[in-house]
């Protein structure tokens, strides 16, 4: 059987992803104990790559990894051409438009020279142009919530989990762009070249029994 390379997104998706893969019998101990970014589980013919969430779709699209586990937020932003074979029941969050409470009654739609700070420039651009709004998208790399407070932007587009960070920074949610969760993606070449391994992985992760073991609700 051919080797399978799986790219895992660092951050909040990593631990639950490791739990799933371990429940399938893979050995990822080295990932937890060392600071290596690539580890191998030779007996099971698998290799694991640790990458930033935004990079996982690219690794997969290019074929550097066969399979990836990544949030849909990063997936939509990267606009890659890969297969999303499976939705996983963790990493739930939402991508929203947020701003100061003054913008609540959609006043922001009337704003000329609307400025939007975000880590998701492509998603944001699509959202605003689909509504006929000419927004100036400002790409920032962290602490997006800060932007309205310091006058960098009128609105932000960002992921929210509980909404606590928004509230703490005096912002409210104005619109939901989409709901996101972890997804299992496969590049189009591996999907056919390694069809058996990929199908096997999907079936194991997706089996009702495994989902039950992970405490997920039955589909």
């Amino acid at each position, binding site marked *: 059987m051919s080797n399978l390379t799986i790219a895992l997104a660092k951050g909040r998706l990593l631990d639950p992803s490791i739990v799933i893969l371990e429940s399938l019998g893979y050995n990822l101990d080295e990932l937890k104990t060392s600071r290596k970014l690539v580890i191998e589980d030779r007996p099971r013919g698998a290799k694991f790559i640790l990458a930033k969430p935004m990079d996982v779709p690219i690794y997969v699209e290019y074929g550097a990894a066969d399979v990836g586990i990544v949030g849909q937020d990063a997936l939509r932003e990267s606009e890659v051409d890969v297969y999303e074979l499976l939705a996983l029941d963790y990493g739930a969050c939402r991508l929203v438009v947020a701003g100061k409470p003054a913008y609540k009654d959609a006043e922001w739609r009337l704003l000329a020279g609307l400025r939007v700070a975000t880590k998701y420039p492509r998603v944001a651009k699509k959202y605003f142009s689909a509504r006929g709004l000419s927004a100036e998208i400002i790409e920032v790399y962290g602490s997006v919530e800060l932007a309205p407070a310091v006058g960098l932007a009128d609105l932000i587009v960002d992921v929210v989990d509980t909404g606590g960070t928004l509230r703490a920074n005096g912002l409210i949610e104005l619109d939901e762009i989409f709901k996101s969760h972890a997804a299992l993606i496969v*590049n*189009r070449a591996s999907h056919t070249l390694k069809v058996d391994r990929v199908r096997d992985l999907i079936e194991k992760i997706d089996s009702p029994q495994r989902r039950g073991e992970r405490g997920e609700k039955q589909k």
Partner: protein
Amino acid sequence: MIAQPLDKQLPHGVADLFFNDAARKRAVERTLAETFTRWGYSEIIPPMFEYYESLAAEAGPQLREEMYRFFDRDGRTLALRADFTIPIARIVGTKLFDRTMPLRFFSVGSVFRYEEPKAGVRREFTQAGIELIGANTMDADAEAIALAMTALRDLGLNDFRFTLGNAAYLQATMRDLGLGDAQLFLLHEALRRKSTPELTRLLDSLKLAATYKNTLAQLPALLGNADVLDRAVCVNDEARVAIEHLRAVLARLAKFGFTDFVTLDLAENRGMAYYTGILFEGFVEGLGFPVVSGGRYDNLIAHFGHNIPAVGFAFGVERVLVALRARGVAKASVAPDVIAATDDYARIEQARAKGQIVEADVLNRDEESLREYARVRGAREIWFRDGRIESVMDRQEGV
């Protein structure tokens, strides 16, 4: 801010090729052209640009969007060719429609697409492909696929695998759904990404008969070997014909010796482009996207006045090069065989006539400098001024 002068820069998406990179690209193009020629295909060379109206014929919205457009002095819109299939369809539909069929053409050259700046996307890239025109038989379909597979072998890429689908099956299945364009678009998108969760959610939201829902829901699972054809639900006769057609194409491919190289994929729709029948893509290990893709387009030439069926495919030459480089089998090199300082031109000409690359010294180098130059150039031998021949020690691989 003062603008950066552009005179030394390159626009996004184009590349300069020289030394071994240029030689390797030409070697791939030559190999493909030779394979196509052996199967009876002759070269066709469409113009680099023509009227946008011709090139936009039957092109999907995405391809239209990506075309480089500009105006001539009379204000008419021109476009750079974005593929070879549409210009060839125009040539056949306007000039060659009454010739004895089939026509077999191959083409090699640059095509241009204005794609969003994204890593790895080239705006000028090279296609090498064929069109088999005037035959809508299973044999024609099988020939197109078998030729693409043979070409991969001739390139030294033996670890390939193809996906094969039939646009007619999907069209027949979707025909009677009564969905609007927006809903169809979402359906195609979910299928394109093989996103079962999204498909399920979408189907839940649509008012459809249960039989249709079940048929659509199982589409992503219609993937694998020939038993997929037995599992496929056919909602009408057209769908049944499409499935039987695939079965026949597979049987013919087996006669070419290509039995275990195909994964059937009935959900494949390639973004609703001009395809009407089989669709196929060839993949090699280590590259996440296809190196070759093609299919049947029976309505395209009709746009230019004559209803003639056709099937074809195109290799992405740059993608082939990436795959070859990853395997270390990119062979072509620009290293010469001999660096010659001698003025024995008869001998030099003799060697050249035998096919050796002999590079003359035009800088009147001394012996030491000749050795260094030959080493850097990757030459095998030095022919010194006094007639001595010396082998080059530890020469480099060339550039």
